[in-house]
């Protein structure tokens, strides 16, 4: 595929028309049809083209497939060939699209005028100004701050900085210093290994949120569910997962056991487990582990139990199980556990893995994570010091927003910097504080490459021409500033020529290059790297003492944990309405931040959910609405990171509070930043209604979620149906069936006569983690409107896919847990919503869907009242009205609208239809090729995105299809089956280790 030709295309052309015709219900006026000047190859109007590229929303570097219609990229999906994410993609990755079409992007170069106002510049002026500034700052401490750049761009910056005597600081707010330092202390290498969840038999996470922001969440979640899924007949069928941490995070919700150890003592617990294993010789303990004797001796379960707040017996049990599983994996180093002694905890966990002989098995050095190359928080602190000392005449910032993540210090220091240049595409806090803004292209418009993991050479290609002609790739800007020849694309290619030399495998470079473009990069398995316990480790533990008990939170003040938001990450996602409106998987709160409080603590303070409290730390104070949750340890508070922007755009600005303001800016011993701080709490007397989608935190035994203990699940034989409705005598059963049959006959007329597929879905609750990637996928695929905070407060969110999170236990001393289930239209066979519609807008299609004909709907909303699953959503306002108060797609966001799906008008009911547009597309394709639709050919957006592959779609009437087999699974059940709605969605009961987690009083 020849990119140069594609980029020569003049005008987005009838793509614009397609977008128009997708907007609003009702015929459009006559519009212009502007033909291409040159028809681009592999672009068929009305048919999507896919381009492979790489996601740059976080350091994981997942592979992308970008869906392009008439020159506009309209959806992002995972690249199945990428070893990082294997075709899956998280919400953040999918929302990159909204970053591309962000209505608040900087359209052209700007510079501060005398009176501080912005002046538009031409690129020549801008580049000239930059060159001039560099000329007189040359050699006097130019600093270039970028995000983690492991590819050509990073290299370009490095070499350039070397030339002009500057320095290059890569800044990631979540740089995992503790993890790197911990590995260095334990193994002498600060590399971040590959954690092989998929082959683990027993997983213990010490505060590592590997489903949210920890290293490579999509890949790790996928691996985790492979290990943790229940599969009848599989030996040692289901790995056990224990989560140790102060807060029941999204990751913790999937755990079979949640242990809220005292914050900071996770390390002790790990060592105690290591102690048990080593002393009991429960595993093939490596010889050199003997050096740890003193260290472990000091951490017998009995000694640490009180400190940790966990009974010694429990620690011993865990240790035995961990060792016995012969596939244990312990992970640590998440932000929520990044205490001042974070590194020590990682060391302890490394010791546990090592003692259990898992290093090299489930913990594999070699395919190391790119974050190893990220700068540390200490470097940032040094930079701030230099800036304050006036040693930084020129500061260049790209792909980082330190003013937001380091409020206070950095912004103050900025004042002492001679000249500040930002290459940000958005006017974020840092860009707003700079003197010159040279807007970069969005990663989806860029040439670039990266190495998210050793052996993975990921390539980025522009999947469409720049949305804003006034923006320029920073790489090109640098090349032009330095007067180097060629474009950045050539620069990338020269690097790849060198790569071709090493990995070419005899291919001609052009083929090698094209191959890489088509597959999104080159994927190789690097050689495994053997590690041994570092010699320091034994020494660093003078026997007897408790070296790893370096830090304990102050007992009187509550400890606050700042947690990375799965949606907003460090705040970079805050200007994307999809991510703002995505309910947090745990709190189900949208559009604003909150502070999590344990019920008992709340009772003590006499606050309820929604009460606004003042949180004061030594570093700052914020006002935060309380959310009372059983999923947090007593006396611990948690606030999400990412909100509270002072700039950055319409969706992010002045929204809630910035958790970074509470955190310290002094580097910890391991050169990182502590994400915990002791705070003082004061009631303000204010109250607000939380913008949550949660109605009731308890399932109340309504049979929405069924849970099976593993022992029972394993004993289930095919054909058994433990969840089938009881109480109907067999003769009545027969009579009912005959009656239903007669009804069906009377309904098989016209289009309904003959054979039809019955589209159906199976959702495995053992796999579903609640990560909500499917929700964003649905927003992207089906043109769902985002409604904004005020309307969510009124419960008017439009999300067709609702992830329900119910807490379990917590009363009568039962352990607190959580169960999640995706709730979407069940496409009932006997749908209550259909007969009540006076105009047949809701009706049953021959292939078993609940059709919803938007243009026929008059909006009586009777269907929504009568839907027991409450999965119908109403357009209360006109969300597509340009410039309207509730506009959801301000230009150019409307360019991401899917032309295959009608944009609904005000006053119309809408709902999930199993992505009927994809079904029809597949049927059209099959018809053209004179064949039937194959099983697995149709994948709804939610199933496609699901990182844990929990959703399976297909034809129920095709008995050989995967969904039909799963529908017969003994674990299968229908939600509210007692209503005889005959849903098309079969849920597979969640299997848990140990006894059933009560889902409610009647459960």
């Amino acid at each position, binding site marked *: 595929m020849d990119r140069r030709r594609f980029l020569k295309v003049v005008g987005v052309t009838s793509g614009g028309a397609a977008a128009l015709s997708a907007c609003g219900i009702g015929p459009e006026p006559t519009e212009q049809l502007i033909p291409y000047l040159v028809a681009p190859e592999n672009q068929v109007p009305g048919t999507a083209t896919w381009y492979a590229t790489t996601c740059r929303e976080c350091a994981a570097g997942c592979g992308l497939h970008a869906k392009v219609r008439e020159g506009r990229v309209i959806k992002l999906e995972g690249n199945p060939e990428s070893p990082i994410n294997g075709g899956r993609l998280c919400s953040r990755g999918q929302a990159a699209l909204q970053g591309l079409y962000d209505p608040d992007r900087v359209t052209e170069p700007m510079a501060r005028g005398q009176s501080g106002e912005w002046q538009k510049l031409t690129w020549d002026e801008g580049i000239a100004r930059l060159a001039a500034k560099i000329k007189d700052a040359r050699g006097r401490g130019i600093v270039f701050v970028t995000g983690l750049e492991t590819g050509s761009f990073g290299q370009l910056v490095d070499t350039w900085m070397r030339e002009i005597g500057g320095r290059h600081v890569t800044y990631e707010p979540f740089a995992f210093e503790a993890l790197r330092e911990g590995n260095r202390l334990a193994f002498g290498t600060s590399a971040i290994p590959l954690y092989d969840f998929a082959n683990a038999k027993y997983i213990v996470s010490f505060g590592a949120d590997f489903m949210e922001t920890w290293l490579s969440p999509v890949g790790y979640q996928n691996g985790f569910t492979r290990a943790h899924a229940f599969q009848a007949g599989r030996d040692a069928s289901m790995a056990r997962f224990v989560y140790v941490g102060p807060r029941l995070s999204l990751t913790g919700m999937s755990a079979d056991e949640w242990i809220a150890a005292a914050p900071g003592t996770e390390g002790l617990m790990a060592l105690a487990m290591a102690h048990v294993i080593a002393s009991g010789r429960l595993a093939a303990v490596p010889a050199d582990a003997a050096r740890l004797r003193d260290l472990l001796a000091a951490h017998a379960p009995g000694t640490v139990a009180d400190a940790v707040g966990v009974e010694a017996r429990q620690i011993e049990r865990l240790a035995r199980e961990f060792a016995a599983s012969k596939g244990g994996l312990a992970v640590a180093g998440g932000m929520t556990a990044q205490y001042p002694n974070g590194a020590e905890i990682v060391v302890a966990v490394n010791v546990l893995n090592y003692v259990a002989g898992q290093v090299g098995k489930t913990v594999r050095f070699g395919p190391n994570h790119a974050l190893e190359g990220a700068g540390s928080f200490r470097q940032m602190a040094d930079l701030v010091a230099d800036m304050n000392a006036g040693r930084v005449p020129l500061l260049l910032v790209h792909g980082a927003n330190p003013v937001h993540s380091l409020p206070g210090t950095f912004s103050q220091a900025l004042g002492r910097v001679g000249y500040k240049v930002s290459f940000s595409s958005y006017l974020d806090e840092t860009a707003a504080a700079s003197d010159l803004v040279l807007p970069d292209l969005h990663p989806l418009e860029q040439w670039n490459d990266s190495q998210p993991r050793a052996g993975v050479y990921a390539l980025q290609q522009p999947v469409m021409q720049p949305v804003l002609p006034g923006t320029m790739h920073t790489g090109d800007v640098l090349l032009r500033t330095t007067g180097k020849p060629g474009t950045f694309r050539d620069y990338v290619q020269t690097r790849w020529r060198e790569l071709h030399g090493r990995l070419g495998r005899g291919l001609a470079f052009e083929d090698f290059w094209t191959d890489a473009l088509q597959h999104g990069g080159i994927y190789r398995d690097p050689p495994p790297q053997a590690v041994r316990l570092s010699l320091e480790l034994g020494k660093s533990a003078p026997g007897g003492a408790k070296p790893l008990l370096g830090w304990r939170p102050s007992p009187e003040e509550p400890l606050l944990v700042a947690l990375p938001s799965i949606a907003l990450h460090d705040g970079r996602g805050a200007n994307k309405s999809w991510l703002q409106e995505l309910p947090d998987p745990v709190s189900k709160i949208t559009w604003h931040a909150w502070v999590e409080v344990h019920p008992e603590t709340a009772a003590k303070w006499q606050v309820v959910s929604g009460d606004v409290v003042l949180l004061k730390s030594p570093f700052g104070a914020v006002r935060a609405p309380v959310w009372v949750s059983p999923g947090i340890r007593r006396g611990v508070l948690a606030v999400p990171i990412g909100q509270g922007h002072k700039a950055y755009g319409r969706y992010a600005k002045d929204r809630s509070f910035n958790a970074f303001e509470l955190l310290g800016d002094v580097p910890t011993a391991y050169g990182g930043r502590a994400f915990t701080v002791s705070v003082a709490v004061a009631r303000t007397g204010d109250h607000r209604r939380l913008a949550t989608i949660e109605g009731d935190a308890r399932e109340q035994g309504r049979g929405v979620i069924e849970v099976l203990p593993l022992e029972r699940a394993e004993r289930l034989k095919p054909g058994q149906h433990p969840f089938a409705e009881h109480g109907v005598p067999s003769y009545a059963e027969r009579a009912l069936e005959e009656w*239903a049959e007669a*009804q*069906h006959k*009377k*309904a098989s*007329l*016209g*289009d*309904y006569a003959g054979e039809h597929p019955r589209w159906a879905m199976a959702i495995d609750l053992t796999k579903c983690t609640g990560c909500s990637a499917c929700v964003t996928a649905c927003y992207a695929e089906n043109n769902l409107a985002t409604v904004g905070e005020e309307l969510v407060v009124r419960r008017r969110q439009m999300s067709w896919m609702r992830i329900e999170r119910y807490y379990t236990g917590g009363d009568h001393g039962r352990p607190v847990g959580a169960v999640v289930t995706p709730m979407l239209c069940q496409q009932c*066979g*006997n*749908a*209550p919503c*259909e*007969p009540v*519609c006076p105009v*047949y807008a*809701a*009706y*049953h299609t021959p292939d078993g869907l609940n059709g919803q004909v938007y243009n026929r709907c008059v909006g009586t909303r009777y269907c929504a009242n009568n839907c027991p699953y409450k999965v119908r959503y109403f357009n209360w306002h006109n969300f597509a009205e340009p410039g309207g108060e509730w506009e959801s797609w301000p230009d150019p966001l409307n360019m991401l609208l899917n032309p295959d799906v009608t944009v609904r008008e005000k006053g119309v009911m809408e709902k999930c239809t199993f992505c009927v547009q994809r079904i029809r597309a597949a049927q059209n394709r099959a018809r053209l090729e004179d064949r039937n639709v194959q099983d697995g050919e149709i994948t709804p957006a939610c199933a496609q995105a699901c990182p844990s592959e929990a959703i399976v779609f297909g034809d129920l009437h095709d008995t050989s299809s995967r969904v039909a087999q799963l529908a017969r699974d003994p674990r299968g059940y229908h939600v509210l089956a007692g209503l005889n709605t*005959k849903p098309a969605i079969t849920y597979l009961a969640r299997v848990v280790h140990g006894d059933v987690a009560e889902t409610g009083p009647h459960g």
Partner: protein
Amino acid sequence: MRLPNPVETIRTIFHPPPTAGVLGVFSHLDATVDAIARLRDAGHTDFTVYSPIPRHEIEDALGQAVSPVRMFTLIGGVAGCAIGAWITLYMSYDWPIVVGGKPIGSIPPYVVIMFEMTVLFGALSTILGIAFNALFAARRLGTVAYDSRFTNDRFGIFVPCEPARQGQVEKLLRAAGAEEVRRA
């Protein structure tokens, strides 16, 4: 020949020439009833009785047949029911759409429509019947003498007859107790 003046024709339709006869005004019900009896004995048949309210004394005295309005009601009702059945079933089968797994044409819900249509058409045709019979088709309406007290507190009897026989009728009415008698 000259064409008839349309205005004239319409006037003659709405203001027909008065019928000759005698009008008796009664203030008492029993007197009126008495008069009716005497008139019938005297062989008068097509006289008109005015009363401010319906009284079956008068009806009995006149020995009227039952009003044909009931046929209107019956026919209307039956027609309504049929129409109700037809639209529901025809419209269901014209474009068969399945909702809630129910049969295309399911009678129970349609009974409601049929019932309502029965009442609607029954009522409307009843009104038609009354209007047709009582207001428009009433014999000699507007041509017979009338007194505005008849809607208030007086009863009245108008006996059409050629001037020659008016004398007897007057006498008869007076004898029956008419408080006032005049020729028209």
